[in-house]
């Protein structure tokens, strides 16, 4: 059974349909990657799953329960967390407060404190900057904070929208190392990425979205073999 099942989802901005009937499935315990050119609808899909955008048609089920059209806080409560595009940290709140906000729905103070310690162990830079305003962090640090904030809700499925966007190569490496680590700890991950080379190293399944439709679904091997995709997303380096 799949953890996340999206069926014929249509999402529109006014009259313009950004998703024109998207269907895909994410297996439990997997790392799944969504590839696609600019404006294909990747962010729209993530926001629709997270409940920020309401689908006009179609169904989304998570762990067997229908979540399409539910409020975002409700979807978080069910175990789905999204690290949004451009991170969107709370700039005038401290790093610690950002993490606390991520645990907003949890009543168990002690467990939250332990989780914060765990985040600090995983992201030592955040511990150093605990009392600093998030707006003063570097791009890479903000991305770490956004990931840590999402993890504070203890999600079963972590959605990430272009986590490597605008970051230096070393930081990108670190992000991918963390993705692999989280996966080992049992979190399922569904992420958007334009950097197909990096994605190939961690993801077990790929979807390609183009103009609001899924145009490819397959394993890393199948992806690398597809001539057209290879040219568009992997460039010459993979020959």
């Amino acid at each position, binding site marked *: 059974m799949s953890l996340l099942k999206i069926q014929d989802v249509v999402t529109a901005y006014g009259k313009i349909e950004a998703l024109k009937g998207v269907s895909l499935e994410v297996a439990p315990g997997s790392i799944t990657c969504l590839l696609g050119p600019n404006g294909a609808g990747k962010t729209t899909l993530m926001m629709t799953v997270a409940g920020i955008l309401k689908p006009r048609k179609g169904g989304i089920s998570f762990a067997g329960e229908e979540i399409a059209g539910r409020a975002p806080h409700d979807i978080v409560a069910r175990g789905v967390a999204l690290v949004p595009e451009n991170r969107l940290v*709370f700039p005038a709140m401290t790093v610690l407060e950002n993490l606390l906000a991520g645990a907003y729905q949890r009543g168990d103070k002690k467990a939250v404190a332990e989780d914060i310690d765990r985040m600090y162990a995983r992201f030592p830079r955040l511990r150093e900057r605990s009392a600093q305003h998030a707006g003063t962090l570097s791009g890479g640090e903000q991305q770490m904070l956004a990931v840590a904030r999402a993890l504070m809700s203890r999600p079963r499925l972590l959605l990430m929208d272009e986590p490597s966007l605008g970051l230096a190569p070393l930081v990108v490496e670190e992000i991918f190392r963390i993705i692999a680590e989280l996966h080992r700890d049992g979190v399922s991950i569904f992420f958007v990425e334009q950097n197909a080379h990096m994605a190939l190293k961690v993801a077990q399944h790929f979807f390609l979205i183009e103009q609001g439709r899924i145009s490819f679904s397959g394993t890393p091997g199948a992806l690398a073999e597809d001539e057209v995709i290879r040219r568009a997303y992997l460039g010459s380096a993979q020959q």
Partner: protein
Amino acid sequence: MLADLIQNTLDGLSIGAAYALLALGFTLIFGVLRRANLSYGAAIMFGCYCATWTHLNFGAGLLLLAAITVAGTVLAGAYVERLCFAPHRGGSMIAAMVASFALWMQFEELVTLVMPTHLYAFPALYEGAPLAFGPYTLRVDALVMFGAAIAACALLWGTLYRTRFGLAVRAVTEQPAAASLAGINLPWVYVRVFALASAIGGVAGYLVVASHGQITPMLGMWSTLKGLLAMMLGGLGSLPGAVVGGLALGLLEAHSQWFLGPQLRDLIAYLLLFVLLAARVPWMHTRSAS
């Protein structure tokens, strides 16, 4: 001369503290909803008239009157939220603002229908002689107003920076999309912020009316204008800015009134706002208000 300056400064700080409260209420609502609530002052006036009516018909102690003012303002605020803001979430800013103006008209007519005299006496905070310190006098009611306003600010501060609800309010103010992704229930926050802001407005209204010892329907427009002015001066959507803006407005008014008279006092406040807006001073452009 020096004595006058000091006296004016004291007076300015005391009315400025009330402005700060008004601006805080506006800022809270603007911060989370990105909309100006034009009937904010009218709701405060409604609350104050509730207290006046109770006082006239039954008589009541100062604390009870304060409680009635706050309760009346929160009630009026709830009505405004349901009718003007809840339906326009994520929708038209102009529609919400015009709707809130329409309710302002309602409140104003309602109070003049029930209490048709233009001016009513309101039990004063303190009726004894002012305190004298050498050449300076200090009106006790001004002192009480200052103290109470500072206490209310402190309480609000504690709420916003030390509680779970406060964390949610700040998160929604800064980054609404990320706040809902963090699991914060936005409509829930909106409704409570509206109630909180109305309660603060009620406190401010009570302090102003009780220190003047009288009330007229002009209180509505007065509170809205002063609150907007102080909020804009301090920087739209910034909570510390609202306090600074309120105190600055109070000081500016007290001094310019002394030197130039009441008409120029108001002129200067608006001129300052206009010039600062036109010059786009950085602290005023903290939030997207478009």
